[in-house]
């Protein structure tokens, strides 16, 4: 086993459709707060910018769910790969 690294306290956006993530990444307000995609449906967000990203997503007409910790469940089928 090689080295492993823990990213602690990171925020993630998970979407059910990769196209949705593309739309989010193309938004000029949200883009500066995002990192590189870690999968087709998942992208890291700067923890301090979560509230701003959530506001922007709502302004774009979405209703994002915000879960505080990684223990909460995501509905089946909506999980990122």
């Amino acid at each position, binding site marked *: 086993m090689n*080295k*492993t690294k*823990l*990213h602690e306290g990171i925020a993630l956006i998970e979407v059910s459709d990769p196209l949705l993530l593309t739309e989010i990444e193309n938004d000029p307000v949200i883009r500066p707060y995002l990192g590189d995609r870690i999968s087709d449906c998942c992208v890291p967000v700067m923890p301090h910018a979560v509230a701003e990203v959530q506001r922007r997503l709502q302004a774009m007409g979405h*209703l994002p769910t915000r879960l505080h910790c990684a223990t909460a469940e995501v509905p089946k089928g909506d999980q990122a*790969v």
Partner: protein
Amino acid sequence: MNVPYTVRECLQGYNADTLGALCASWGLPARSKELNIRSLEQILESSTQVARLLANAPGDTLRLLHLVSCHPLISLADILSVRGLYTGNCSVEPLRIALQHGWILVAPRGSSGAFALSDLTREYRPNDPSPSLFVPTSVQTVLPPAPDETLEVPRVPEGTVIPDPSPTDWTTNASLEFLRLVDIVQPRVTAGKTLHRADWQQVLEEARNVGIPSESLTLLYGILQTLQCVAEQNGRLVVTPRAEQWVRLSQSQRACDLFQVFLESEDLYEITIFFPESFSSIDAYAPAGTLRRTYFKKLAAYLLSTLDTSTWYEVQTFVDLIKTRDRNVLFLEEPWRAIQAHARGDIAVWRENAWRTHEERLYQWMLRAVFAGMGIIQLGNQGSVFRLTPQGVFTCKGAPIPETQSDELPQTQGAGDAIVVQPDFEVIAFLDRCTPELRRRLDAFCDRIRPGQATTYRITEESIRRGINSGFPLEGFLRVLEEASARPLPANVRDQFSTWIRKRNAIVIRTNCKLVECLSEKDARTLAKNNDQLRLIGTRFLLCEDTQLPHVDTVVSYSQENSPFLEPAEGLQLKCPWEKWNLFHTRRLESLGTLSRASNGDLLFTPTIDKKLLQDDWQTLLDELQSLTVVPLPPRYRTSLRAYAEGNVVGKARTVTLVRFEDPETADAVMELAGSSGAIEGRLGNYTLVVRKARLSELKRILKAHGIRVITSAECWDDTPVINGESAEQISQPAELTTIPASASKKKTRARSKRKKNVSTSESAPAPQELPSYSTKIMQEILEDAIQRRRLVLIAYESSLSARADTRVIKPVMLDLHNTPPVLNAFCCKQNVARQFKLSQIRGIRVLENETF
């Protein structure tokens, strides 16, 4: 609770008599001060011996020890002023017993002199320096539980009491109402951190509609602020996510939280009401952060906890009990209180009247309004008698959660017909049938259209968004609507809710995640296979869905934003080791250059070297790189970027003859010699002269005439320390040069570099810390002992050149007490030189017992 000083450090601050008294308590023979300290130190650090004696300690001493052990340091004056919390008798006696046995230690007192037991009887004013006390760790670990105190309080026979029909959970319901009002109004917070007057009035008005008086609202505001259920955000008071967690606790737990916060609250709101004239003095004599500040509340709570469960007591009897326990609870016996009240005549009569007018009313209010409102006590016979409720036993005595309430979660729905949901998304709520929680949810998820007894709300996408932001799940709100409505929800409303729920699940923002990254895909797959709690995301990442983390080699924290992360690498490359780079670093760098990953996972970055791009803003690029780099960028980056951008950085080559002298003075003198200007072309730095082409023989001749020899040397050319302005000119490559060996200079340099090396490697650079401070006399004793036993000493020394005390390790050699002022001769490990330290300027001292020299 961590203690800041060792037993020895404290005992060193005691005077000889006190140490003798301590020795006598432990049955030790009285010897010299040093021997006494050593014997006591051994005993007090032995938990077995301490436990043996503690088992026979009086009850009030044990209660005192528990009280003191809750604080890292507590002042003597403060602990003496709250005697009611541990004894009903003289406050000094339990403390004397604890001090004489060393169960409580006095911290070093700086320049205030040695501690004596007679200090206990001194009268301390609020701003007087009073000894600081703490319980050493060896005592804390074996401290037996404090025995319950039994007080003789007359009881009221059961048959004569008619319980009042008061709700037992009024305060928790009121706090839920307060959260709802904050949700609705979102009062503005002014620059002075107070609520905007108009908004606060609106909150008060709304509160009056649901039966909460303004006094209770002010108290609730303070309590909920302390519980972090409400907080300022963008200039407005809002309900925090913490409130959601708190609301979901059981009723008993919430009441207990409110009670504890009420006891710990230091805002003295009650005093402003019941002692309007003395408020400023009480505020000054019970400063924030002391036990005295909250004593009047804690004393009542403590005495409540000594009462029998389910027995009725008269309110007046309980107030008298407080008076008997400590009449001075609110400074009634202090002369300033009588002066402020313009007391005349018999002072005893005045005190009696003052107690009835102020203290008695305060405690009656506290019992009837606060304790009864929180469900701690139940009132009877129209508020004249009371008894502890199961909730009160749980809150005051730490008993298990009352069975009747342990499973009770907050009721979110009201009666089955509390609301009517209409197809046009309007909700009619009958407020008399709605619980505070249901009203709060409606206010969070709906727009209020018409207020009143039958309030009309409307559900819109915007209001749903607002409700989601409050932290309550949308599914939960739908369930609340279904349960509170007598009829099924209209189909179109249900469909719309399904759409919203589907939309919510399309995007999930997870915060505070624990994401494990592997170097290779294979490792990630293996890890996911072996651990059910890890969910594979993409190819190399795993989301940890459990609080138990797998073993990881390194942790990257996201608590700090924009901290530098790059390190200089080969050439113009910069690198970020795999252990350090986070998921946003690549985004920050992609506009500045090209990125690649090394086989070991390190991120390699090469800045864009393009003349056109760099022409105007190479300096900006350099600044950006500097801000991303953990160490100052080496000069090659700057030079290289400038060279690429401007293209005019040229190195010129030429062969010359150089003559180097061992000191700048000789070089200066040679420059001034008659005829030397024809042979010398110029000067390089302070030591070296450049000889004109084919003029070396002429220069040699001139120098020889002045007794200076010139010899050829192949030794390493330059080891001179850099002097201002010289570094750029220095030549570092040895060549076939003519030189005078600078042996002395070399020695000096070697000594300097050795000293430098020692500074960097020695232990003499400890982090700034709080060191015990003593009077000069005690300091002298400690140093003499350290010199005798050859122990290293850590001191905080305030030199005359600096206003800040500098911490350093020294090897003490000799005390010179005949000098004025007395000094310590020592070897400073930080500077690596012998130094003299004035005793009066040593601000803290700690003998490093394990380090000898």
